[in-house]
């Protein structure tokens, strides 16, 4: 398994942002769903080696990120798109991607080709020399995705990757995810249930720092059948039903 999380907890003060999460994921697209404040971003930041868990065990790509040398090896094989990624406005798209390719310790000789391929794959080939300050929000997001995939990562963590993308770009992005998932584990945190339905092979739903559902999109859809959960699509109804059940359980316990 590329991702093995066991009883992972992360606290910020008194708040348990991630509360005893256990997950496993191999190659494929793994969707992470949940309402705002569910703990998705904190979980992703731990998997990206930004944050250290307060407790629990985490193995990424068969290595323990708690130690320096394995952490470096994980990072070498990691792609990460944060939720609110800023940009260096004076850099061009190509420079921005090249900058992170070099920081990811890619061999300098391979960088230009990898940068060109990454930019091309997110559809920014014609804007490679454009300064980031001149790009739209959707284009910036795609530049962010390009930097995440430039090193052909084995573990790709994408936090709200389709935010700001227009429908056409989202379709293209899903195709890209399918392609990337042939050789990597892609973890996508999103609010957009239809993205999950379109590309994810597995999905987990978080609420209040806990995993309240873990299965396939079809299983999530099935949870919505016969329930009175609202939603335009079957998957959305499944999402609503699981969430409603989790909330009522929390109320009963409290």
């Amino acid at each position: 398994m590329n991702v093995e999380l066991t009883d992972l907890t992360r606290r910020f003060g008194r708040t348990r942002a991630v509360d005893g999460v256990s997950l496993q994921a191999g190659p494929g697209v793994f969707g992470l769903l949940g309402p705002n404040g569910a703990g998705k971003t904190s979980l992703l930041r731990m998997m990206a080696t930004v944050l250290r868990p307060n407790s629990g065990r985490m193995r990424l790509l068969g290595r323990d990120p708690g130690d320096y040398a394995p952490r470096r090896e994980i990072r070498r094989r990691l792609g990460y798109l944060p939720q609110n990624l800023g940009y260096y406005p004076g850099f061009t798209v190509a420079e921005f991607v090249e900058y992170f390719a070099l920081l990811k310790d890619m061999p300098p000789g391979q960088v230009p080709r990898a940068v060109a391929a990454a930019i091309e794959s997110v559809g920014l080939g014609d804007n490679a020399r454009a300064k980031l300050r001149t790009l739209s929000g959707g284009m910036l997001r795609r530049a962010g995705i390009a930097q995440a995939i430039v090193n052909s990562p084995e573990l790709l963590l994408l936090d709200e990757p389709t935010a700001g993308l227009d429908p056409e770009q989202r379709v293209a992005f899903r195709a890209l995810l399918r392609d990337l998932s042939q050789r990597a584990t892609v973890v996508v945190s999103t609010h957009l249930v239809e993205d999950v339905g379109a590309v994810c092979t597995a999905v987990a739903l978080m609420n209040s720092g806990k995993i309240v559902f873990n299965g396939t999109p079809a299983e999530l859809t099935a949870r919505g059948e016969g329930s009175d959960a609202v939603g335009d699509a079957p998957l959305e109804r499944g999402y609503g039903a699981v969430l409603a059940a989790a909330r009522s359980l929390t109320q009963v316990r409290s």
Partner: protein
Amino acid sequence: MTAATAAPVRPAPVRWVRSAPLSFLLLLRMELRRNPMPLILPLIAVLFWFDAYRPSTATQPFWMMRTFWNMGQGHTIIDFGPFVAGMAAWIGSRDGRRGIADLASTMVRPRWTAHLATWAATAIWAAAAYLVLVGVMFGVYAFQGVHGQPPWWWVAVGVMAVTAFSAAGFAAGVLWPNRFAAPLAAFGGFLAMMLSSQTGFRSHAGWALILPTNSNGNYNQQDTGIFYPYLPDLPIARIIFLAGILAVFLGVLGLPVHAGGRRLRAAATLITVVGLAAVSTAVGLVRTAQLSPRGTVIAALHDAASDRPIAYTPVCGLSAQTPVCLNPAYGSYLSDVTAALTPVLAEVADLPGAPVRGTQIADDAVGTLTISGSPPVLAMPLGAIPYLPGSTGFGYSTTEKQFADILREQFLHAFVTSAGPQTPAQQAVEAALLQRAGIPFADQPKLEAIAEPGPAPEKATATGPVYDAAQRLLALPPTAQQAWLTAHVADVRSGVITLAQMP
């Protein structure tokens, strides 16, 4: 809750070949291309022109004088420092301000490496701009025919100061990444410069000599770079001090846990400690500094080769048939000097002890004209004479007549005095000779106050027994005056003649 996707983990790819230096250079190239430091350089250039260059143009055409204000008092550093610190802080806070810190912390290369590349680009821009502006200024001076040698050591101090400011500002930005980092770093740089200047004005010795805008210590005589090279002792100490500050700030960037691995942080700790040691060493060195007439000597750094005079071929002219030779740096003043000396040399030409030639010497401890040796030679430390003709800068200027009067007073003072304070008879004879050279009694007290080094003479007006004796001497017919002087000038000079023994 546990679940798993089914596909197996694929084997790890072949390990990449590491090429850290090349990657660093590529990062540096990118940072150099996109560094915002050039945006602020036009502002610095304007300030530099107004504050560093313009006030210097009115000074006498010697490198030491032209660069006293901008290099000696460190105005080039003052003009650069706060802006460089502010912009470096802005650049250093980039990741924090723009929300890239999370992503940057997931990179393989240590954060310290990325920071060093960004800082290096910032420092290169700042130092290059400093060198260009100073280079242009020096080029203008050279074009204007400024004499002597440029103060290269002080340029090195300036470059190091600008680099240290960039490191300090950058570290502030990295460690405190918000929008206030830049203005606060700039204000901090400005405050540091002001404190450095104010402390520097008051401190001629001790630890304060290490401050880069303290002009005391090396720029203490006009003939530096003309007769003797600039002593590098103090600049070397200041470079050690500034390099130490630079190392401390760069080292501190590598200390936080997220900056890199254990080895790298150990290296950062070592660099910080070495930097602190360098700062302490430099301060310790300047505390041992001795102020010599040719600059600050720090025994541990002093090279005897720096004491060797600069070889030159003098330029000479005749003044009342007496050869007068000057350092070629002072060649433009030769006609003023010969014209000033002509009446007084002519006056004493036939008297015992009259100099057979005049030679310029370096401005040293004496600080005034002297006549000594056998045959007697007039030694002229022109660099010490207050106010060479022309503008002296900062609103002062001297006419050729004022210069001539000062030179004549100093010459006749030297002619009638062998050593020590003047006796009343020596004062009387000097007053009489000055009157004969065209400087009336009434002007003499004020002239002596300007011309003679040390505290002004007590006499405020040309009255009293000294001037009465001078009047009596001048009342004699010219031939009688000459005869009395010929007979008694040696005794006057040795101090054995009293006012009562004068005619």
